[in-house]
């Protein structure tokens, strides 16, 4: 790889230089005097775990946050960026994880929104840009009808249309299939070849290795290192990302997650054991005549981990709720031979079906109740005597659970809603395992979690499976599914398609299934 050597002090000034950027939110220091330099014509990876400060730093560049201290130079000239408008004028474009688009407008209308279009051949210009950079879109299509991958291209076009010299992409591969990721990386290369630079925010080492010329690693709001892709290795990056934490060898594995994918098909013995969960022909009728969960059949042995991959919005929430008894359905689901469909949620819970939902704040906890109460939720009936709950015992058990699951909290009486995402997930997992689950379903269990918490969740899932629990992991992160699952299936449009044993799943094959291009029966 020919990494352009944009050493500071060289002849040409770097395209972007941010110096001593400091940002605090109340007592929290989000950015600790961060330096960040992007050379001309480079794809620059901004790598770090969740909460490392990557997005915050780029939001400062894009004018969304005013820094407490620090300077920004573009092309060697100092600039003041107080709003996204200033950022765009200075040549900075940013594509966020959630797109700000008007669903009922066309692609072209969304691209030009807020710009002066008099005397501009809008469609022609969009077509030209999309051809030049390999960003295939139909300018006349309605945004609301388009899949996530295409909507992302529209966001990139929007930035390019406004003349971005520096394009920031925030975790752009979330919810893309492997094919779409390849296409995106191709477009990024085309953009760089035209003389612009791209900043790729990611927590995946594999992506930086595949797409970046240089990369900057951040941890806990601080700059750790900036290295050339040619001079580093995934292991080196993982070590820098994780830092000198005591469990760094294990957590580095998580940071590396998926670097080996596609290199070889491993021959791993299939999990065999007594069949524990049998779901057959599960269907949930929807409002518009189309089923939201359609004809889903599954089978799990004791100790087996089934991974369900898929792009968000393909009925995963409904499927999760159906498989855990939270949503009325037709069909059948038996756990150790006992039929559960048609029985109330409480009966599923008692039988040992435990659900760890995706939306932790909305579905997982009572935010205003304290940790003790949240740990009792769901088990409050089984542990009550004569209709009364023994809160003294509950508090003692909460203290044990907090130390076992390493929840960071001042006390068990702290409101659950005040905890960080990782700690909320630890509370939810503590509660889930207190049920002694026979079948555990987790939906996007590590989304938004830092590396240590992710590692913790993986360890717990594997330990549960080793203890005989049947586990279903529904995740939009394909790497996560591949890392955890003994068998992989794909959710597409309310159905389950494909069925691959561990080591036999080709990411591209999965990608085709995720977009509804049926390959395997």
């Amino acid at each position: 790889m020919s990494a352009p050597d944009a050493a500071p002090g060289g002849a040409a000034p770097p395209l972007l230089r941010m110096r001593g950027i400091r940002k605090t939110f109340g007592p929290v220091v989000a950015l600790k005097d961060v330096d960040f330099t992007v050379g001309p014509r480079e794809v620059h990876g901004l790598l770090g775990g969740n909460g490392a400060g990557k997005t915050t730093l780029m939001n400062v560049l894009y004018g969304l946050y005013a820094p407490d201290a620090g300077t920004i130079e573009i092309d060697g000239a100092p600039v003041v960026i107080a709003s996204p408008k200033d950022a765009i004028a200075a040549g900075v474009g940013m594509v966020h994880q959630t797109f700000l688009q008007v669903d009922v407008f066309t692609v072209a209308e969304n691209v030009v929104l807020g710009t002066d279009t008099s005397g501009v051949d809008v469609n022609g210009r969009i077509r030209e840009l999309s051809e030049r950079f390999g960003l295939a879109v139909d300018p006349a299509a309605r945004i609301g009808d388009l899949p996530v991958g295409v909507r992302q291209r529209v966001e990139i076009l929007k930035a390019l249309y406004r003349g971005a010299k520096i394009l920031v992409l925030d975790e752009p591969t979330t919810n893309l299939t492997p094919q779409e990721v390849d296409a995106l990386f191709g477009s990024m290369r085309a953009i760089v070849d035209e003389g612009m630079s791209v900043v790729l925010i990611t927590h995946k080492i594999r992506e930086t290795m595949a797409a970046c010329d240089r990369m900057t690693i951040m941890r806990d709001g601080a700059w750790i290192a900036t290295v050339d892709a040619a001079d580093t290795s995934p292991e080196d990056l993982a070590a820098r990302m994780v830092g000198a934490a005591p469990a760094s060898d294990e957590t580095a594995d998580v940071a590396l997650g998926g670097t080996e994918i596609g290199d070889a098909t491993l021959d791993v013995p299939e999990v065999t054991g007594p069949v524990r969960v049998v779901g057959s022909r599960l269907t949930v009728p929807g409002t518009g005549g189309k089923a939201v969960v359609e004809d889903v059949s599954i089978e799990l042995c004791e100790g087996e981990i089934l991974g369900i991959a898929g792009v968000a919005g393909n009925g995963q929430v409904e499927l999760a709720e159906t498989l855990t008894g939270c949503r009325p359905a037709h069909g059948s689901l038996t756990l150790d031979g006992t039929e559960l469909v048609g029985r109330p949620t409480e009966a599923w819970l008692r039988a040992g079906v435990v659900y760890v939902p995706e939306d932790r704040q909305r579905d997982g906890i009572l935010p205003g109740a304290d940790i003790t109460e949240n740990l009792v939720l769901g088990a409050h009936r089984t542990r009550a005597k004569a209709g009364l709950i023994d809160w003294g015992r509950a508090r003692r058990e909460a203290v044990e659970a907090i130390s076992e699951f390493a929840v960071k909290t001042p006390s068990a009486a702290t409101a659950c809603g005040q905890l960080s995402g990782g700690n909320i997930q630890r509370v939810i997992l503590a509660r889930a395992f207190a049920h002694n689950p026979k079948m555990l379903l987790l939906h996007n269990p590590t989304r938004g979690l830092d590396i240590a918490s992710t590692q913790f969740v993986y360890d717990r899932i594997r330990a549960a499976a080793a203890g005989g629990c049947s586990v279903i992991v529904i995740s939009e992160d394909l790497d996560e599914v591949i890392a955890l699952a003994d068998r992989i299936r794909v959710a597409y449009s309310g159905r389950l398609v494909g069925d691959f044993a561990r080591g036999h799943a080709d990411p591209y094959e999965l990608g085709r299934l995720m977009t509804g291009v049926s390959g395997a029966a």
Partner: protein
Amino acid sequence: MSTVTVAARPSVGERAKAAGVAAIPYILAVLVAFVVVAIIIALLGHDPAKAFRAVLTNSFRNRTGMVQTLHKWVPLTLLALAFAIPLGAGRFNIGGEGQMILGATGAVAMGILLSDLPTVVLLPLLIVAGVAAGALWAGISAWLMQQFKVNEILSTVLLNFVSFEILDYLASVVWSDPGAGGAVTTAIGAGGELPRIGKPPMHIGVILVALLAIAAAFYARRSVAGFELRAVGLNERAAKLHGIRTGKVAVMSMIVAGALAGLAGAIEVAGVHHRMLEGIQSNFLILGIIIGLIARGSLTAVPFVAFGIAVLEVGAGSMQRTSGAPVEMVLILEGLILLFLLMSDWVTDQLRLRASRKAAA
């Protein structure tokens, strides 16, 4: 891995300190409300000091004042509970007065139709009929809410109007007392009257409701049903996903509320009036809501707040007699206390924000 054992709850000292900090907005709200009302009274040309002395001391000056206050405290506590319990599940019962009137109706029906029965039979019958009628009345709204998704605020309010007509019809047509010169029923049988104790006499409904209020507070904190009610109010979706039948909990909270309001109606009949009359519901609905909101839904706090409001209500007449300030001043005072309390939430947030900023700097 660091395994530091955390405390189950903050120490007693810390909790006391937190309670003290939490009390500040209440104290301020009460003080500011009194100041504003004092200004109004002064502007009207009366003496605020004299007015407040009359309001605040009337209940404690002699036993009559105290009995009056406790008799007032009974329906206020019950109506406040009838508002606060569904509020715990995120539902709004604005039908307390209708449920109370139906309770009075059930009680007076028993008391008139079965007037010859002895106390041991008639009094329990009368109370049970009142409780059941109130529960049934609230049950209509609960059923509409659960089955047809009819907003419970609307249905409970509208059923209040229906109850006024029922009361009017019964008191002026069916069981009308011709000698009373208004919409008043004839008296219930002597066996239906609540026994009175002491001198001046206090009906034993006070003791009954005191026990009930303690039981309700205990039950809300310790029971499975209390926990489920709280869970539904805090996050209905999460409660549902964890096996709580949220619809059932909401319906039950409405029915229990109706039963309590119905009990208030029965006690007014059996303990105070010994008949049913137009206006028996007084302004207990609105005061019950004010009490429930000042107590912030806490069933433990409701009886205490209700006592404070009962003192003000009983003192209102005395205030008008001694200082000339109109009785309505008391309702203004009560409303302002609530208003300033709600505003104090915002002030507290601002102060907290400023403190955290200062800590960061």
